[in-house]
């Protein structure tokens, strides 16, 4: 659809030039010869919404739906701003605030700008989880995110650069935000935003794109594996000297695979491994070489874990393609500052595999709702360690019940430990771990934690088929 539209414009441009050339000795140029295009409006909210249409505010699932309002007393050099009331963590109608502002109508041509800017302040100093643009709920093709933005109690200006403005010729995802209370001990707060607009600032400079967070990463892989290029970031230097890091959607990049017959990469950063060998993924963004790379070392055919055969009626599945999984908050909470564990999850012929990288500890959280495993007697894990198993391998799985109050660290938690020792695992082989559930209270299970113990230097492993059963 988009392609055919573009083709049409090209054709009309060509025809228009031919036409004008032919008749130029008789007529002046008329307005009719102007190439059609999308609105070049940069303003989103400047004391009032600008050309956003009526149905532009679309909250994220689980966010407090009425967090957003227009404040008619407070504004940046005005008396009007967007006000977000971030709810307390225990608010039953939603425990965070987040939404996209999507143009209700045709997209905008933002190619003449190089940054989204706005003024912001809050009722208390806070690090806002995310601001950005390019999220439209239609694939979020050109999404850009600035994470952990410091907002104080006085107005300050936030500048979020556009990685490659030439891509944004028809963009509806004008603005988005997500604000929680992890950093405020669960207490809600207010954020005001004003003069939200796209601008062209000569002071936004020194673009430095990166993949794999700028590292030369490598991963073991196999025929049939599908994985993604991750760590897509770009750093800009702003007039203040601030090094602004943004997270960038893959569609801004041009990816290259050194050996596509081993591992090819598509424009969305999806890598498909199809033969044994090595392929190095690199990228450019708007003509600048991206720092970092991803080397795929394909070992050939992959060995899938044994397919689970237990009756689904006797299983509560946390992660398996053989069963319907219960709701899971996350498989990696990226717990800062202590956890270094990354995720490089992949799938092989439809079987999704969790892959933890740079591992020290990591957790899977099941708090919405908590898992009631009171009718279950066993727990199962399939574990695979690619490459050599460290001699000091020592691995602990903890299952944590959050007790009758259902709150993590609420004073009534209980925990079961399952130790996996060096002699239980074999390199490059799936190992099934089946352990009895010894937790007395196991009707409010909120966490499964995996960790290295006794200085174990395990850094990389795969996990599949995590479930409780009887």
């Amino acid at each position, binding site marked *: 659809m988009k392609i055919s539209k573009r083709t049409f414009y090209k054709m009309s441009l060509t025809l228009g030039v031919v036409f004008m050339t032919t008749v130029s000795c008789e007529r002046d140029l008329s307005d009719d010869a102007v190439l059609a295009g999308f609105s070049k409006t940069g303003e989103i909210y400047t004391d009032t919404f600008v050309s956003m249409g009526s149905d532009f505010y679309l909250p994220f699932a689980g966010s407090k739906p009425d967090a957003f309002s227009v404040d008619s007393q407070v504004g940046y050099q005005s008396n009007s701003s967007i006000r977000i009331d971030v709810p307390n963590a225990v608010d039953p109608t939603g425990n965070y605030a987040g939404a996209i502002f999507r143009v209700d109508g045709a997209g905008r041509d933002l190619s003449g700008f190089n940054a989204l800017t706005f003024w912001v302040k809050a009722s208390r100093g806070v690090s806002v989880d995310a601001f950005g643009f390019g999220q439209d709920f239609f694939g979020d093709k050109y999404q850009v995110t600035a994470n952990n933005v410091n907002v104080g109690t006085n107005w300050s200006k936030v500048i979020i650069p556009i990685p490659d403005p030439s891509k944004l010729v028809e963009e509806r995802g004008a603005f988005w935000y997500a604000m929680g209370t992890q950093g405020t001990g669960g207490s809600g707060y207010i954020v005001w935003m004003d003069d939200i607009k796209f601008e062209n*600032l*000569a*002071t936004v*400079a*020194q673009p*430095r794109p990166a993949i794999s967070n700028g590292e030369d990463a490598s991963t073991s892989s196999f025929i049939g594996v599908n994985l993604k290029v991750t760590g897509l970031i770009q750093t800009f*230097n702003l*007039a203040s*000297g601030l090094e602004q890091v943004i997270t960038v959607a893959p569609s801004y990049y041009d990816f290259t695979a050194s050996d596509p017959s081993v591992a090819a990469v598509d424009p969305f950063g999806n890598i498909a491994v199809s033969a044994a060998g090595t392929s190095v993924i690199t990228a450019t963004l708007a003509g600048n070489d991206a720092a970092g790379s991803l080397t795929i070392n394909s070992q050939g055919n992959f060995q899938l874990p044994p397919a689970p055969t237990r009756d689904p009626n006797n299983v509560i599945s946390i992660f398996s393609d053989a069963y319907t999984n219960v709701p899971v908050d996350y498989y990696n909470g990226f717990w800062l500052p202590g956890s270094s564990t990354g995720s490089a999850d992949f799938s092989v012929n439809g079987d999704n595999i969790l892959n933890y990288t740079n591992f020290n500890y990591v957790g899977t959280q099941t708090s919405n709702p908590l898992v009631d495993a009171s009718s279950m007697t066993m727990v199962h894990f399939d574990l695979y360690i690619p490459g050599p198993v460290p001699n000091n391998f020592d691995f602990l799985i903890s299952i944590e019940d959050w007790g009758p109050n259902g709150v993590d660290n609420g004073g009534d938690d209980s925990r079961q430990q399952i130790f996996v020792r060096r002699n239980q695992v074999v390199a490059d082989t799936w190992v099934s771990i089946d352990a009895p559930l010894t937790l007395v209270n196991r009707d409010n299970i909120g966490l499964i934690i995996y960790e290295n113990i006794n200085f174990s230097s395990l850094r990389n492993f795969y996990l599949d088929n995590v479930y409780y059963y009887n």
Partner: protein
Amino acid sequence: MNLTLQMIHTKFILRLGIFVASVMLTLSCSPDDKQQVTTKNNLVWQDEFNIDGAPDPLIWGADIGNGEAEGIPGWGNEERQYYTDRPENVVVENGVLKITALKESFQGADYTSARILTKGKYQKKYGRFEARIKLPWGQGLWPAFWLLGDDNNGAQSWPQIGEIDIMEYRGQEPTIVHGSMHGPGYSGGQAITKQYDLVTDRLDTNFHVYGIEWGPGYVNYYIDDVLYNQITPDDVTGNWVFDDNEFYIIMNVAVGGTFVGAPGLNTVYPQTMHVDYVRVYE
């Protein structure tokens, strides 16, 4: 043309006050006022950096080391770099002088860079000194285009010899240029100085012209077409030492130091100061 001149004059009135504006109005009848903020238009010395290779040895010498040999380790400012004259640190290429700071272990230092100077090769009192420069960037980078007074074969020492800093800049403040004068009673942290913030443009993404116009009892500082300061004997807190000696030109990139602070952990290297030309007018 008339309109443009009129607008420029309006700017001057705002920036410099009626006195300077009326001077400019008087001079504006001259049709070839290319650099309107200046009155000295007779080009008497230049290096356009048109020959590839090392800087012209008839014009430029180089300081080598970390200042220890001169008795001022860290060049008197706790700077971190070791100066060399290797092409990695200083070279003329494609019509541009490049002074490049590198992060490398070298002779006990963590950084290398270069500092070239016209001492004993070209020295002059008074004139319009200007250079067209694109600056490096990042926390801890400290490039400079400056003049030092002749020391009469060591008979005089800093700050008595005088120092005119035409351009200084902190890599972490990419929109701000500093112009300063050091002399007896007003040196180091007590220098007579003023900064100018471009606000809407940067110094590391494009070339800008940095200059002074220096005459008896005054030094005017400008960047591009903006005259942003004038320093006279009334402004300094000591003797005015700029009407006696000849001065020579220095161009360098320091890494770290009292003026700029420690280099940042994430500062990107190499960092290069690009100089299109240096010219002196009378």
